[in-house]
């Protein structure tokens, strides 16, 4: 039996996981103006590593290793593809398309390895549920909310208090000025990629945990749903991405729960409702809910 409270919790959990991915988009975008289309395959890479390693290392060890490895892979991709030089706004569009190429490569390889299998990540929650009042919630959902809250809090603290966060904000504001003030743009960017990779690997765990059947090759596609979340937030604003993710997650959970009443829209509309929300918001505000209106100087 579903109830509003249960649906809201589901939505919150979903939104929290989207927020992990969406924050990854936002940090990379802030640091370099590149929209990272390879985020989905990075997510799949992290999930795959966790699935492969958890027999040997245990879940926590496997997750730690996967997060680290995905962060390193993302950082290496950045170094390898975009060089050590300072990011150049003129090439951001080209680099965005390069990330699509990287996504094709990574995704092809991972799909080939995963094949038609459903991989278990060996997470400790299994299919156990908790009861809150009259509502039953999957433990994995509660864990998703808790872990995401901690991770997102940590990222926000990093933005606010660390030297890297300051550099990132400065670089996003004005690259030239930041560079002249001694910000090493290349390093800021590489660290942003690492952070995005780590967040993606973390998100993979919760996307593959109960009630999802496990990690499959299409799990990476879910990262695309974080695009609407990041776009709603205006792409440059971390709090905006968080708000957008929660909005998307809640909408998706509520639509999925009220499938029966919404049958005109067809079965599985919940899966595509994030995109519908994005189109509706872009119609009203082309720069997103929290996006700054760009000013162009000639």
């Amino acid at each position, binding site marked *: 039996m579903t109830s509003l409270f249960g649906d809201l919790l589901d939505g919150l959990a979903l939104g929290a996981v989207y927020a992990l991915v969406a924050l990854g988009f936002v940090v990379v975008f802030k640091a370099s103006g590149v929209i990272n289309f390879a985020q989905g395959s990075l997510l799949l890479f992290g999930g795959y590593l966790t699935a492969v390693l958890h027999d040997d290392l245990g879940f926590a060890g496997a997750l730690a290793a996967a997060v680290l490895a995905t962060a390193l892979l993302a950082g290496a991709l950045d170094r390898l593809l975009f060089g050590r030089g300072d990011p150049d706004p003129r090439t951001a569009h080209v680099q965005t398309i390069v990330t699509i190429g990287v996504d094709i490569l990574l995704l092809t390889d991972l799909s080939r390895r995963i094949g038609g299998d459903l991989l278990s990540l060996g997470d400790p929650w299994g299919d156990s549920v908790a009861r809150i009042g009259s509502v039953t919630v999957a433990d994995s959902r509660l864990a998703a909310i808790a872990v995401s809250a901690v991770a997102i809090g940590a990222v926000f603290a990093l933005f606010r208090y660390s030297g890297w966060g300051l550099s990132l904000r400065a670089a996003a504001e004005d690259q030239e000025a930041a560079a002249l003030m001694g910000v090493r743009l290349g390093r800021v960017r590489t660290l942003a990629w690492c952070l995005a990779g780590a967040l993606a690997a973390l998100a993979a765990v919760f996307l593959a945990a109960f009630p999802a059947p496990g990690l499959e090759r299409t799990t990476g596609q879910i990262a695309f749903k974080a695009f609407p979340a990041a776009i709603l937030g205006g792409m440059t604003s971390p709090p905006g991405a968080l708000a957008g993710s929660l909005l998307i997650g809640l909408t998706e959970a509520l639509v999925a729960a009220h499938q029966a009443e919404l049958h005109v829209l067809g079965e599985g509309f919940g899966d595509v409702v994030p995109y519908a929300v*994005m189109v509706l918001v872009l119609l009203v505000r082309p720069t997103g809910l929290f996006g700054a209106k760009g000013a162009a100087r000639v």
Partner: protein
Amino acid sequence: MSDRRIPFDRLRLKPAGTVALALLLCLPPFYLDAFWLRIGLFSLAAAIGAVGLSLLAGTAGQLSLGHAFFLAVGAYGYTALAGEPGPGLPPALAVVLAVLLAGAAGGLFSPVAARVRGIYLGVATLALVFLGHHLLLTADSVTGGFNGRSVPPLTLGGFAFAEDGRELVVLGVPFGAEERLWYLGLALFGITCFTARGLLRSRPGRALAALRDSETAAAVMGVDVARHRSAAFVVSSMYAGLAGVLLALAFRRVVPDYFSLALSVDYLAMIVIGGLGSVAGATAGAVFVTALPLLMTRYADQLPLVATPGSGDGAVGPTEAARYLYGAAIVLILLYAPDGLHGLARRVRGRLPGRHSPGSPSREPAGPPPSPSSPAARPKEHTP
């Protein structure tokens, strides 16, 4: 300013060359078997779609990942309008209406397409692919749902572009569906090239190029930014619709899963590999991306490192090998030759002696950096 040619299509052919090329393209049905003709047919269809996308991305500087959706509108539009159940219109009329339908779908999206810029439009158009796929699965009275529906053959004045029981032999070669469709594809591709080049050289084409190079400057010169952006989107959707019709005729069955995000990415790969903003480049890219997996499947047993399909898990099958290759092609081309095959061809030709005869217009673009065609290489809007 008035008669300076805009350097879009530097592979421009002289009329004699065009005629020779057209005649050459009429020959394959007499020499090649159905397998090669099918590859050619899919390539022609892809080329039509890629030219449309190239107009949008290369000329207007707008990125679209929604091309699969417009292909689907064209393919399903034709099938639903000409087939049973449906109004059962004459197929030729259905083709025209399907293309218009794709244009209308693009027009409906234009409130977003006109205001969202460059790469953001790419993300916004992701929505079209996913929503469109959902629609194809849901509206099964029109689309046939998950299993799709079969495509009625195109007939034009009693002549069917399919096997119709009557034997047709031309110069001793029996003309089956592939041979007939080849000429249809060729004609449609010819129309596409002709109109696209006309458009690029026309007033709106120049306005779009100005828009890509600097939105502000173009607006100051009197270009209606929103109107031109949405018009570019509509035109590109119409080409996609036409490509969709041709694909539907070639496949003889349309299924929703074909029109996925991967297809949109394929089209993006085509124009990137070919070089943004040129008709010839888009065509070359389309042939590369379309023919590669088909050829690798056919010759899988002779290629090193490639397993034949279905030979167990974990082996690199031909489809995967093709995807590796073109994923790598995108990355390498963008990093080392950002203007694609088209740019490579131009550079090679530039090194050949005797290319700069007085008759040929200067090949060098007028502006400072030879950056023209990518939305990518848009100069920073900034005063020095």
